[in-house]
Each structure stands twice: as structure tokens, then as C-alpha cells.
């Protein structure tokens, strides 16, 4: 079944031996978008803008949304290994990838395993590296709504906040959050949201242009983790967006898009 809405479609594809839910939209060079720990948030303004220059591929990770759970996946590195086969089956060749939070961690794990598969990496507030100052906010000690709210410095001033976190979420939305939380839990419970070996492997990305984006007031993953990423990946750039929490793509879409366009369009 394919759902079409304006610039995007949603379908179930058979990839890497599993039914994978795939949102696809836009035109131009392919850009793989890896969603965060709460799942694909729906087609937002930043997607619409990115779709003017790229064909977006937004799969739901194993166990999220409409993609089947893989019981053997015991952690992020397992998921990353499986995801490389998803890319094989998509047959897109070398592509750009953009990952948000848990999806940024996933992008980093995939890239260190197989750097030649990726042209450029955009990591937006990625998990995966332990901050040197502060700790990663424990999403499992609060309910979904409280976690999503904490992701924003100022939810009231965020235009699309109500769209991703309505005051009265539908039962379907609540269920999708619970499914996402359970899968995020399977990927990140212990050690929480990071992998101690990842910083040592990130050096392998020395020839992969990497942009790291961080909200300066990120209350979920402290900025020091971003500095850790930047130091671990030779030649990477860290851009810090002020007055912004953990979701710059939603809270500060102009600044976010400007940084991303500049980075992806440069030779």
C-alpha cells in the first residue's frame, strides 16, 4: 500500500529480509534521514525544504512505526549492521545521511563500519558518545510527553510543537510513542544512549565530511558530547545553534536548514 500526500509517499518495502516502512519524497540527490528515539515525527517543514534539493528516504528503524521488530537485535551496533543491508537493497550507491539524536548515533555506527557508503554525514544532536560534562537525560524515567517537551528550549515558541506533541494526543499517537520507547529501550538501555567504543572508531571518518549540529541549550544530550564527536572525527565541523534545545530542525528550522544547505551543497 502506498500513501501519497503532496510531496511524499509512504510504503512498505521488503528490505534486508524485513518489511520496512519507508517515507520518500522530493527530488534531487538521495538523502537518507534517520529518525530519533520517538520515531518518524511526520512530514515537517524541514522535510519539505530539504525535499526541494534532495530525494528523502526516511525509513522507520526495525521495531519502530510500521517496520517489523528484529528480536536478535540487542543493541545499536546490531541495528547498524542490519541497516547496511537495507542500504544495499535500496541500491542507491554512495549517499548523504542525516541522523537525529538516536538516529545520529545509528548513522555514526553505520559510517564507521562502512565509510565508503556515505558521501557526507549530518549528525544532529547525536547520542552515542558520553558527554564529558553532564549526563544524557533519562527518557525512561518520564512519560513520552514530558520527554518530548524537554527536548525543546521553548515549546510555546516552536511553531510545529503542537503537531508533534499535541496537548491531547490520539490513542494512535500514544501507542506509536510507546512502541518507539520500547524499541529505543532495546537499543540504548545499558550503557544508556552511548557506546564506549564508538569514540575510538570515529577516527575512521577522517575522509567523510561530517557536520555536527547542536542546540546550545540541549537538555537531552549536553553540548560536551558534541565537542566529543567533533574531537573524535578528524576534520568535522561542529555548529552550535543558540536559543535552541535538542531538536534544532523543529525549534530553529531556518538556522538548521541554512547550515545543512551550505554543508551539503559545498563540493
Amino acid at each position: 500500500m502506498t500513501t501519497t500526500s503532496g510531496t511524499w509517499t509512504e510504503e512498505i518495502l521488503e528490505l534486508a529480509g524485513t518489511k520496512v516502512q519507508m517515507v520518500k519524497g522530493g527530488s534531487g540527490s538521495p538523502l537518507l534521514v534517520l529518525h530519533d528515539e520517538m520515531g518518524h515525527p511526520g512530514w515537517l517543514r524541514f522535510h519539505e525544504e530539504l525535499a526541494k534539493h534532495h530525494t528523502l528516504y526516511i525509513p522507520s528503524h526495525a521495531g519502530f512505526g510500521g517496520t517489523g521488530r528484529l528480536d536478535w537485535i540487542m543493541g545499536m551496533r546490531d541495528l547498524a549492521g542490519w541497516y547496511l543491508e537495507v542500504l544495499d537493497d535500496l541500491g542507491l550507491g554512495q549517499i548523504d545521511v542525516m541522523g537525529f539524536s538516536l538516529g545520529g548515533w545509528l548513522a555514526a555506527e553505520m559510517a564507521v563500519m562502512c565509510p565508503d557508503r556515505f558521501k557526507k554525514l549530518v549528525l544532529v544532536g547525536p547520542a552515542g558518545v558520553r558527554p564529558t560534562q553532564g549526563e544524557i537525560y533519562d527518557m525512561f524515567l518520564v512519560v513520552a510527553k514530558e520527554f518530548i517537551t524537554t527536548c525543546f528550549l521553548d515549546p510555546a515558541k516552536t511553531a510545529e510543537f503542537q503537531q508533534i506533541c499535541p496537548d491531547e494526543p490520539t490513542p494512535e499517537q500514544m501507542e506509536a510513542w510507546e512502541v518507539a520507547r520500547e524499541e529505543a529501550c532495546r537499543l540504548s538501555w545499558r550503557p544508556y544512549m552511548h557506546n564506549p567504543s564508538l569514540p575510538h572508531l570515529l577516527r575512521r571518518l577522517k575522509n567523510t565530511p561530517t557536520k555536527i549540529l547542536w542546540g546550545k541549550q540541549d537538555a537531552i544530550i549536553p553540548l560536551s558530547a558534541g565537542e566529543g564527536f567533533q574531537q573524535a572525527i578528524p576534520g568535522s565541523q561542529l555548529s552550535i545553534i543558540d536559543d535552541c534545545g535538542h531538536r534544532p530542525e523543529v525549534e530553529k528550522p531556518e538556522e538548521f536548514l541554512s547550515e545543512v544547505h551550505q554543508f551539503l551543497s559545498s563540493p
Partner: protein
Amino acid sequence: MFIGYFTERPYQDQASGFFGATGKPIMDLMVSNDVYDSHLAADLYNRFLDEKLYAEEMGFDGLMLNEHHSTPFCMGGAMNVEASILARITKRAKIVLLGNILPIWDDPLWLVEQLSMIDVISRGRLVSGWVRGTGRESVAHNIEPHHNWERFQEAHEFIVKAWTDPGPFRWEGKHYHYRHVNPWVKPYQKPHPPIWLPGVVSRDSLMWAAEKRIPYIMLATEMDPTKQAFQLYHDAAAEQGYESGPQNLGYLWKVHVDETEELAEQAGRKYVQGPSNPFLAGNEGTVNPALANLPGLTSRRRVLPTQAVATAARGGGGGVAGVLGRPYEQQIEDHTIICGTPKTVIPKIRHVLEYLRPGSIFFWDGDGAMTHEDAMRSLRLMGEEVIPAVREIAKDLELPGPFEVDPATNQPIPPEASNGASAG
């Protein structure tokens, strides 16, 4: 009828500010142990052990312990330590652990050894229950909640094998891996200590117990949903091709006996004061809804009727923070607290036994804000009047316990084979 005694061993500290009817709210995992007074704790641990000794003297068949972590409502963070002491200082009563939190053990071989030692030192008086634990336990010991049920089942299979099969053997499971299993302590009871399963929430767990022919104990749940859950067990047993009976089912609830009705009410009201377990119906305290619904801990769809009541009380679905506590008067009304003099208490206990038909019961007493004196008065009157009367009622109602009729076969157990633990 098997009659046990239980208290959750609350950390009762008047000076902490978390104690008493008007104390600060106790939210899960939100109370810093900065307030912990080790000298006071020494008095409390010894008090609770003394009360267990007296409970044995007063004729209880079982002394029940439980375990929770990082919380003032239960001081039994390492229940097996208390059980080890009871193994040495008591003589006759069963030591009923309800139970060890199987999924949080990364090394269940250590549990095999500890429980075998308790069984050997007590000369075969261990009843070894398992639980899955609340979200608090998963967080406190940092064990994956999403594998809770898998780890529970694998740990159970491993422990039973380690208790019964000759070693050494290998174990290469999904969650547990051993190259050399050969514990140098084996259980006193053969083939192994009885395994019981207490619960309040999970339909999976209840069905598992029924399938394994393991007695299932409902913990302080309300009467109607408890009866429905018991019926689920009986139906599941019938599907498994055996007949379950009272010997397969147990019920724990709050019973306090006192010298006068006035004293009984004074003490009974203390159940809902002080630090008490917010997860069980009728207690005060604030549940963290995220902890109550850790991802994957319990199936969101396969819960028992008892939990449906609990989540409704929290505002439905557990997504809204709330207080589970029901007023004292309501609990008296629906018999989830029974307190009074022996004369008024005995008919109410009879009512519960008639309605639920359990073969094992546990009187939960000495909890909340109750003092040692409150607990001891009640224990004495239970021994002198209530326990003898309840045994007669149980005979009259034909409610055999699991040491009288085998829960696996529904066949009578000869008295000598049950170590004479249950006086009937």
C-alpha cells in the same frame, strides 16, 4: 490451609519527614538516602526479625519476605540475607520468599547457591518464589526491562536445572552463559524447594504459573478481580489437563488483630500512614507513571483484571500521575483491610476464604506506621485465637494448602513428606 505472616519492613523514621499521614510525598526513586539513619535501621531490622521469631512461636506456618530496591517502603533490598538469618534462628516455619526478582540477576548461578544454602541450613524449609519486579527494580539494578519476561523464564529454567541435574554442565542461552555449572551446594529438599509465584499485574505470569503447576499468590489485590484472576488460573489448569484447587492459589492481605476495637482502629489506620508500597492497592504514595510502565516490562495488553483496576485508579492507562491509595474506610468496607478484635476479625476472614477459596493465606501486618508493640499484640492474639479458628474454618471449607495437597497432581501429600510444616 497454609498460614503465613508478612510485613514489608518499612523504614520508619519519624525524623526523616517522609513518615506519617501528613509526611512529604514519597515518589518512586525520588527519596534520597541522604536521610538514612543506620542506627535506626539496625533497630528496625532486628525488630522485624524478632517479630518473625514470635510469629513462628505463635503458630504461623510460613514467614514471608519480599524484596524491593532503593525505596523506604521495603528494607529488604537483599532479602536472601534476612532469609539466611531466619534459616538459623527459626526451627519449624517455612521461609517463604515472594520472591527473588529473577530478571535483575545477571548471574543467577549465585542465586542458585544462595537459595540452596538457605534450604540446607534451614533443613529444607525454603519456599522459593520468583517475581518479575516493578520498574523500580529494573532501574535500580539497571536491567533491561524489555527482556524482563525472557530473562525471568530463562533464569527459572537455568536455576531448576542447576538444582537438579548433575554438574558440571554448560549453559549457552540468550541471556545467560556459563562454561562450568557445578555449584557445591545442592538443595536439602528433593528434587528442589517448592517454587511459588506471587503477582498483581501480568497475565503472562499467571498463565505461566498455571502451565508449570506453580502456586500463584495474589498480593493485596481487591477481592473481585482477585477472584477473576483465580478463575483464569483454574481455567488454564483445565486446559493443561490437570485439576487445580485451593492448594494452587494464595492470597495476601492486611489483617490486624487487637485487644479492643478502639486499639484495632488506631493501629489499622497506620496501614495507610508512613512509607507503604504505592504499587499495591490501597496504599499511599505516588507512583511515577513512567516507572510503572517501563518499556516492555509488562505486556500492555496482557494484564490481569487486578491491574485493570489499578490503572483505572491512576487515571487510565497509567499515563497520568496519580495516587493509588484508597481511603481506609473503603478498604475496611471491601475487606482488603481487616482489623478488629478476634471476635470481629474471624468472621470477616471466613468471608474472604469463602469468596476466594485460597489454600495459602498471608496476614500482612505491622506495616506502615505500626509500632513493634502494635505488631506484637496482634501476633499474640493471632496465635491464641485467630489461627486456631482459621484452621477450623479451612477444614470446614475444604481449603487444603500446598503442603497437604500437591499443586501439580491434586493428590494428598502424606504428612511426613511435607516436613510437618503445615499443621493443617
